[in-house]
């Protein structure tokens, strides 16, 4: 396991700047989650670290070593691809053993067998070891793909939305399993996801990316509670943060044009009257859709609320977040 440092890493594809002076330190044993919408070039960042893409500028260090000129094999990274990329002409067992048989690792056969068994056990694919990789369901392929990384003990695990096509139950279990592997092995992970729960529960650090730039890097709580911009604030939180004109409520700091209200920032019972437009019972939470002066907002309320569409609820902000016209945080 090792520390991975990116310094001013830049990559363009033709005229399109994909990664723009990205600097980030993934500490040894860290679990860093990259968040960002589709097209924020999170995957490009993983490919730059793995060596599948060569940066146009900047420096990448793995375990103190400058690796720009090294091949992917020399960098000692393991990667879980979003598209699985299982070798279709091999069985599940051969797929899992493939990295261990590489000229770099040259693992003895008995050790390979043991390692493959262990990983298959964890990922619950033991019964499928002799199947062809093409004869699996999507979820099974994804697990084999994770397994192909986990059989190794690399400097860093790079994972590109590894849990995206699993059902909720298995996703929950594998989330715990990855967390356990991280804690148990002291593994270093860089993990790309859209899923807020994965980001909040697994990450030691979260990096938020916007069009190839890293806009904030911090602990999940920092990112959630203290976002530097409206963009970052919008990446975490369900329901999403409500962005409303700052002058809707009194007490906005000067220069603020937008007030950002998460459900916990909205105090119900006092303040300005708003109208209930919809009540959504999700089971563990109840969402309340409101309009205030023609602006729609969503918040949470008591699970067994008696409120109905048309009712009036008074609301006021409580330690809300304020942003200027450019979307940057103002205090």
């Amino acid at each position, binding site marked *: 396991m090792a520390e991975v440092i990116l310094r001013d890493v830049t990559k363009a594809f033709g005229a399109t700047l994909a990664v723009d002076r990205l600097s980030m330190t993934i500490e040894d044993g860290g679990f860093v989650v990259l968040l960002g919408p589709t097209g924020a070039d999170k995957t490009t960042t993983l490919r730059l670290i793995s060596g599948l893409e060569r940066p146009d500028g900047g420096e990448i260090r793995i375990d103190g070593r400058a690796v720009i000129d090294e091949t992917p094999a020399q960098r000692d990274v393991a990667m879980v691809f979003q598209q699985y990329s299982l*070798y279709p002409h091999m069985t599940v067992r051969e797929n899992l053993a493939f990295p261990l048989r590489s000229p770099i690792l040259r693992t003895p056969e008995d050790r390979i067998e043991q390692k493959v068994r262990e990983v298959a056990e964890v990922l619950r694919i033991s019964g499928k070891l002799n199947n062809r990789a*093409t004869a699996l369901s999507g979820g099974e392929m994804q697990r084999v793909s994770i397994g192909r990384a986990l059989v190794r003990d690399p400097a860093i695990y790079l994972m590109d939305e590894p849990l995206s096509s699993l059902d909720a139950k298995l996703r929950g279990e594998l989330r715990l399993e990855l967390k356990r592997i991280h804690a148990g092995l002291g593994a270093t992970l860089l993990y790309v996801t859209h899923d807020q729960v994965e980001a909040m529960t697994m990450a030691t650090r979260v990096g938020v990316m916007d069009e190839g730039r890293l806009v904030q890097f911090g602990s999940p709580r920092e990112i959630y509670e203290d976002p530097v911009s409206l963009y970052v604030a919008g990446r975490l939180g369900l329901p999403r943060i409500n962005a409303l004109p700052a002058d809707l409520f009194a007490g906005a700091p000067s220069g603020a044009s937008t007030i950002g209200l998460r459900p916990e920032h909205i105090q119900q019972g006092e303040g300005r009257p708003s109208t209930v437009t919809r009540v959504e019972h999700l089971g563990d939470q109840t969402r309340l859709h409101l309009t205030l002066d023609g602006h729609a907002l969503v918040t949470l309320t008591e699970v067994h609320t008696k409120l109905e569409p048309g009712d009036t609820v008074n609301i006021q902000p409580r330690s809300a977040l304020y942003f200027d016209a450019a979307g940057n945080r103002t205090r």
Partner: protein
Amino acid sequence: MSGYSITEPSPRQKWIAGVLVIGYALVTLMPLLWILATGFKSSSDAIAYPPKVTFDLTLEGYVNLFTTQTRQTPEYLAEHPPQTWYEEIVRDKGMVIAGPSRFGERFLNSTIIGFGSTFLSVFLGTLAAYAFSRFRVPIKDDLLFFILSTRMMPPIAVAIPIFLMFRSVGLSDTHTGMILLYTAVNLSLSVWLLKGFIDEIPREYEEAALIDGYTRFQAFYKVVLPQAATGIASTAIFCLIFAWNEYAFAVLLTSGTAQTAPPFIPTIIGVGGQDWPAVAAGATIFLVPVMVFTILLRRHLLRGITFGAVRK
């Protein structure tokens, strides 16, 4: 409704399809069957009119194909009784076997040149196709067009220049010369066909292999090649069929050492006119290697192994 699904053909449809397929196969196989039969006919049966469908089987044609014979006096024949079954066959016509014919050598030449040029075309074609498919090659499109353009003129149109060239560099009537020539002709087909197949193999597999600790060449060898097997097999069959059947250059550029079977078979002259059973026997034997090769590679042709392991 008696439980037929929409996609499953009914027994009646299957029956009609079966009859059509068998009928078509009979029509296309008829010439082959005729050649096969002619090989086992006697010379007079082979040219009988109306043609004979039933006849007495004889191996005369095959014996004539593989041997050279001389006519001998009845005294000589009486003094030297035949030693072997094939000797006996030629004795009926008052001949003795003088030695083996050249067919064996010619057939061996065809095998060496056909398989040699096929191997070379597919080997070079695979490497070139991989490079064109995966690497940033300068003026790639122009190069690919140039490779294709070598195929735009019928090769025989440049027969005279090639003939002169081969003569001056000493490649005339050599195995090397013929292998190089057929490789040159087949290479454009091979590069283009294989590039199509390799383009279809997602790059992600190689990327995964690179990260799994393999070099670019190992990734090519262990991951790309097995998946290109279908393409390589069909390309090899096309190349072999061309090189195996090629007649015009073989007539022009070979006469002895490196002569292949196609120009040799028509030169088989029998006693009293063309020896059709021997020609048919030669043609039959000549067909076998391509058939065997195709049947051996059939497994790869039918298997679509890249289906479904990369999420689209």
